[in-house]
């Protein structure tokens, strides 16, 4: 729906790792979106269609994202009808959509085209974040990068 809604975004996090060949399990989608007014409006529309609301939602208030949330700098965690979706305004180093674009590759399958954060930048971001879960992920990310170099034809 993000693609159908013409939202400009980059897949980051676990899904980006999986798309790059890292053998891990992921159930959520992390994206970094362009924070232009037009794109934020498109993203808000898609989030509305996905019934996106902030998680955790202990009080079951179903708080919806606002434009100001999506133009800030934070990480916004949502539950949607398609599962968990994390919308990140920036990742480590205050890197937003524009800063990350040079570090992306395009993954296409039939009519779907995804802009995905490449493994070297993903490794850098995880290293800088330095949370326990990120440190745990680093060895398998780095090993995958090694293996990809041995099979350069891989998409």
């Amino acid at each position, binding site marked *: 729906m993000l693609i159908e809604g013409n939202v400009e975004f980059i897949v980051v996090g676990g899904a980006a790792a999986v798309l790059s060949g890292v053998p891990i399990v992921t159930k959520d989608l992390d994206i970094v979106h362009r924070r232009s007014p037009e794109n934020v409006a498109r993203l808000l529309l898609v989030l509305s269609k996905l019934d996106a609301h902030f998680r955790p939602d202990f009080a079951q208030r179903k708080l919806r994202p606002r434009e100001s949330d999506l133009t800030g700098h934070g990480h916004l965690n949502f539950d949607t009808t398609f599962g968990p979706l994390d919308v990140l305004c920036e990742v480590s180093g205050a890197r937003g959509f524009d800063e990350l674009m*040079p570090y992306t590759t395009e*993954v296409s399958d039939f009519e779907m085209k995804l802009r995905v954060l490449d493994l070297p930048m993903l490794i850098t971001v995880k290293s800088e974040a330095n949370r326990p879960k990120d440190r745990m992920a680093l060895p398998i990310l780095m090993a995958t990068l090694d293996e990809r170099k041995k099979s350069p034809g891989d998409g």
Partner: protein
Amino acid sequence: MLMGDELVIAVRAFLAEHDPDVLAAVEDVDRSLIQSELRRSPIERLVASVQQARFYERLAASRKSAPGGSR
């Protein structure tokens, strides 16, 4: 602006100094799993990963609902 290999060289240098255990763990990774993943298309990998996550969720839910539950 650092790109590609330069980025990873910088990360490796940082880890060598501050977190050598993480760097050492790179050699312990089962490469056969990675090679298997690399034979799939990117979208196939994503679909398989999500299906696997859902399987684990269902398994965990069934364990919780079983008499005695799980810890």
